[in-house]
Structure formats: C-alpha cells, structure tokens
C-alpha cells in the first residue's frame, strides 16, 4: 500500500475475525456530532432520512455512554445522569449485540467516534476499529486539502475502507 508519507501504517492490521460480506454500515463522528463519514454496504431498510439517522445514532451513543458510566459499580465518582462529562471520563462500552446485528464502537480522547455495524456473530472488533482510526489519520488527517471538521470526501479513503471492512466482517 502506498500512503501519503510513503510509509506503512503501523501497527499492521489485526488478523481478520471472520470473512464474507457481513459489514452493514460505518459511521465516523467528530466531537461536535458532525457525521464525517457514512458508508453503507448492506442495509435494506431505511426508515429515516440520512440526517435524522445520523442524529439518532449519535444520540444513542451519547446516552448509552452516559448510562454505562452511571451504572459503573467499580467507580466512586458518580456523575448525575445526563450531566456532561469530560471526554474520556467514566467508562464506556465497546459493543452491543442484538439478534440481528452487532454494533462496535470506539471513541478517541480527541472525540472521534467510529461505529461499525456488522453481522451479530462477528468477533471482537476493537483492534479493527483502531486500525480504521489509523486509516483515518493517514488518508484524512494528513491530507492537506481536507478541512478539519468537514465531511470526508476521499475516494482513496473510501476504497481502502471498503476493502478492509470486507476483509474483517
């Protein structure tokens, strides 16, 4: 692979946990709740328009994170439910599974949220999400023509992402 710096992405991608065409969709949000990227591979049902859908997804993650932190039995510092937290404060979830899909979630301290929805029997994708974050750094952040905070329009990033997701889920 050839990147902007001509360097390989380190660390190298984790070993695939499954193979096939099981990736449904992927969202990337930034700290302001702006959907930087939405990719869809296999999603027969659309009930909302794209904007509402992104807002709903972001809202779900936001509330779920606040809820998981509130329920944490190991921590003594209890924020009130709904009270804003500092990024990284409190614990967070990394995936949930229903009988029809699995949602994997990663948030970085800089507030980038990566959400990948896959087949319910996909394995642990935390390393893979981290790798996608590395792809984002190489193809988006390091692209001088990209304005931070704007939706990502990079064919190169999309192709690489499609390829990678096809390989893991």
């Amino acid at each position, binding site marked *: 692979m050839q990147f902007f710096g001509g*360097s390989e992405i380190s660390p190298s991608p984790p070993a695939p946990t499954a193979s096939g065409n099981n990736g449904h969709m992927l969202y990337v949000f930034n700290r302001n709740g702006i959907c930087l990227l939405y990719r869809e591979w296999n999603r027969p049902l659309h009930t909302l328009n794209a904007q509402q859908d992104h807002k709903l997804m*972001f*809202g779900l993650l936001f509330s779920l994170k606040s809820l998981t932190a509130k329920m944490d039995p190991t921590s003594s510092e209890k924020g009130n439910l709904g009270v*804003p*937290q500092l*990024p*990284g404060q409190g614990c967070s979830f990394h995936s949930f599974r229903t009988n029809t899909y699995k949602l994997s979630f990663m948030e*970085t301290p*800089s*507030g980038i949220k990566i959400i990948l929805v896959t087949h319910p029997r996909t394995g642990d994708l935390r390393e893979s999400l981290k790798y996608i974050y590395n792809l984002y750094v190489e193809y988006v952040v390091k692209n001088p023509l990209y304005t931070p905070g704007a939706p990502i329009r990079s064919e190169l990033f999309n192709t690489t992402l499609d390829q990678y997701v096809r390989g893991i889920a």
Partner: protein
Amino acid sequence: MAPVAPRSGDAIFANIERVNAELFTLTYGAIVRQLLTDLEEVEEVNKQLDQMGYNIGIRLIDEFLAKSNVSRCVDFRETAEVIAKVGFKMFLGVTASVTNWDAEGTCCSIVLEDNPLVDFVELPDNCQGLYYCNILSGVIRGALDMVSMKAEVTWLRDALRGDDVFELQVKLLKQVPEEYPYKDDE
C-alpha cells in the same frame, strides 16, 4: 482482551517515517524567513507561527493518539508528562522534562534542552522580539484543545535570546465538558 499498554516515545520514533533532520531544520528556517519578509513586523510573525502551529496541532493529535495508544490521562500532570516524554520524542526526536508545577497542578514548565528547530540559527539584531519556535507553542495549544483542554502556552526562556534552555509554560485554563451538540428543536 488485555488493554494495550501505551507505547513509549522511543518505540514510536523508531517505527515512524522520518525526514532528514537538517532538511527539517532548514525548511522550518525558510518558512520563518519568508514570514519575516511577508509580514515585516516581528509581532505578526509570532502570531502567524502560533496560528500555523495551532492548525498543525489540531491534526497532529489524532496521529499522536492513533500511534501511541495513549488513552486518557488521569490528570493534567500526566498529560504534561505524556507531551514531554512521548509527544516530543515521537515528532521531534527529543525528550523534554516537566518542572515548576504550581500548587494546583494546572501550570507547569516544559524544558527543552535540545531543540532541533534551532540548529544553525542566530537571531539578528532586528529580530530580537521574535519567538523563533513559536510554532511549538501553537502545536501544543492546538493538540490540547482537541482533547478538551483550553491551555495557554508561553515561552519563559529561549536559548536564542541568551537563556541556557528553552522553557515553555503550559497553563491549563479550563477543561471543557462534553455536551450534547444538538438542540432539542432542531
């Protein structure tokens, strides 16, 4: 899955794509030189360098987080240590030390003994007000901004102005809590 330990600055530096140090130093010098020609006022150049640094910092933070596996810092003390030990090592190949903490733990100094930006540099008489490395303070400010810490970064000592080392004061102004970004009626 066991959590991945943060990587050390040395380990990242060894794996990262690097450019020739002299090329880097001279390129930076050329930028500063051009700014001095274009903007004429030394004060304006300082401002411009800081702004350029800020723009670098808001992007650099993601590369830093992606490659270092640093998750979250418990407090600002840890943040400062990470900047000095991992951040400076990863991007500049030098290590800095953190000193002069105030009682509240919100203000400290990052001391750079070795600074690759200033090899071959001497400030001429008409540029005495120039903070030659002002880009660095901008980078730190921008990067901290992206992890929700508003900080003020100023130079306390500058080897180009006759001090023995470079000393950056980093002062944490406030930590911004994460808020739900949408209004209810949207």
